[in-house]
């Protein structure tokens, strides 16, 4: 159940993600940001509701659309933005940019620019947790498109056979790049694939914080009980194009508008909090202000940060002890 403290945390996290993504968008249009940038705007409820139930000892793996997961798993906006701008002060020293961002110290095993690439890695992290008899879980985020990669199949089968404490979270945002799910995927609900692995599968409204929260709570409990993985499908939608340069010729603007207006996860959550009388409007407004300020500082920090020194470009290929 979401209590006041969690509610505030989730709200703040969603706000941070939203501010971060929309700022990244602006910076991109201003040519201050480059490379392949995939924005998470519209999907905030998933990362926030799930990561609100994780500690630094729990792991996640993330995707090319990874800023949201990264922030929800505890990353600071300034270091994250610096990374997107390729600065020396970024989480990965300017080497990863948007597509491979990670704060390893917070249990984020990384964004992954290979679609489906993170699933085996998450599975292995959960294997370690189980072998170490730790009371922690790993969450594996991936998209609808990734659910058609071989690694999806191999990983979930392995985790099921070994009863690993891993939760596979598919964010079905209706498209893999420009391809609609119906053109790429042989089931209506990706959670139906759970049946092929003898594990529970559940489809929830990914824009409904509470629905995601509850489904994940069940899955986490199961994982900690030692009963193995769960597949959760969160149906959602990305507001922006697939990447910052996407002409979006493959989908209807009206549909996108409708998602923005009627199904904004942040507005929906505010309404829900109000209905439950859990957090005051004033408190939420205070969050808005604080996050805006945090973001402003992050931009300042990232813009004024130095470029990495090319003399160190060969560092860190290997750990030298």
């Amino acid at each position, binding site marked *: 159940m979401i209590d006041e403290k969690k509610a505030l945390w989730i709200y703040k996290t969603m706000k941070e993600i939203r501010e971060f993504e929309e700022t990244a968008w602006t910076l991109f249009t201003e040519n201050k940001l480059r*490379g392949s940038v995939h924005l998470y705007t519209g999907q905030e409820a998933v990362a926030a509701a799930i990561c609100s139930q994780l500690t630094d000892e729990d792991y996640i793996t993330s995707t090319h659309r990874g800023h949201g997961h990264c922030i929800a798993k505890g990353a600071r906006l300034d270091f994250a933005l610096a990374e997107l701008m*390729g600065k020396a002060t970024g989480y990965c020293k300017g080497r990863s940019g*948007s597509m491979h961002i990670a704060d390893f110290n917070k249990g984020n095993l990384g964004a992954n620019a290979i679609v489906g*690439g993170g699933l085996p890695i998450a599975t292995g992290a959960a294997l370690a947790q189980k072998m170490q008899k730790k009371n922690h879980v790993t969450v594996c985020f991936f998209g609808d*498109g990734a659910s058609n*990669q*071989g690694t999806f199949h191999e990983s979930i089968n392995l985790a099921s056979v070994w009863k690993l404490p891993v939760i596979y979270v598919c964010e079905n945002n209706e498209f893999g790049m420009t391809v609609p799910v119906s053109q*790429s995927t042989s089931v209506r609900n990706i959670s139906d694939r759970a049946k092929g692995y003898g594990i529970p599968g559940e489809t929830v409204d990914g824009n409904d914080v509470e629905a995601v929260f509850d489904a994940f709570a069940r899955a986490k409990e199961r994982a900690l009980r030692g009963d193995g993985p769960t597949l959760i499908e969160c149906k959602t939608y990305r507001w922006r194009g697939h990447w910052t340069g996407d002409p979006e010729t493959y989908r209807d603007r009206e549909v996108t508008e409708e998602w923005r207006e009627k199904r904004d996860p942040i507005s929906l959550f505010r309404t829900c909090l109000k209905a439950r009388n859990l957090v005051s409007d004033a408190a939420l407004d205070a969050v808005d202000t604080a996050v805006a300020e945090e973001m402003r500082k992050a931009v300042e920090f990232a813009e004024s940060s130095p*470029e990495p020194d090319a003399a160190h470009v060969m560092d860190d*290929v290997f750990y030298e002890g």
Partner: protein
Amino acid sequence: MAVISYAQAIRKVIAEEMRRDERVFLMGEDVEKLGGVFGTSRDLFKEFGTDRIRNTPISESAIVGAGLGAACAGMRPIAELMYWDFAFVCADQIFNQVCKTRYVFGGNAIIPLVIRGQQGTGRGNAATHSQSVESIFMHIPGVKVACPATPADAAGLLRTAIRDDNPVCFFEHKALYITKGEVPDDPEFSIPFGEAVIRREGSDVTIVANLLYVSRALEAADELAKDGISAEVIDPRTLVPFDYETVEESVRKTGRLVVVHEAHQVNGWGAQVITEVGKRAFRYLDAAPIHLGAKSCPLPFNLALEQAVIPSVKDIVDACHAVSYR
């Protein structure tokens, strides 16, 4: 002769060959409405339908394997990999299946399959979207390997690839798509595999380069000319088959050899060329050949870092000075 871009040249040949032969079709991720990330199939679905310009799931092993199966069954598929880095995702289907099927089955299979995609640096795509992997395809036998550096070569080599009854891996470079050049209008225009081209004649040093590095080698040659060093620039165009003869002949003349590519230097194809040509023309070599390629670290996101990993024009110039002892 129209002046068109490298991307347009590819699109043109795909369209012409699909018109000519109904067995030819294209499949890959986002090839339909998007027309590929770089527009190499833009709007082609309008002419050919979504049966022949076929969007796939994100399942590279299935894409390449289906290409192989369809080729064995009488079609002439073009399977597109969005980035050649994803060849690792489907490496078994390429190296253990496509490469070996004809041979192990006693020469009974005919496999007219083109696997094409783009690779390389220049767009801040970082470690898993910026690699140059063509050397591996030369190491494992069983596929031909083409690396066009100009719009005309893209057109001419791609036509040869599509008409070849063997699997061909076709390496485009993402930074070349927007470059323009003259391309013959003739829908029969093709360039045979295994014929290197001398991009610039010279007498003091031979530079061998492919893809993006052809233009960088030419830039270096301009620089070198200022210092009175006359560089010959050779573009092999295909790595399998490889035209060692043209390089050998050049080295017999110049006595000096520099090979440069964007692929990693260690075990890159340049070492092979140096070894083979070194053997053929040893007595003519006045200096140890130099091999330039990407440093042994992943490609970083930051543009300056990325450039620090791959050879610069200055690196090529310096190497030519070094082999020339001046």
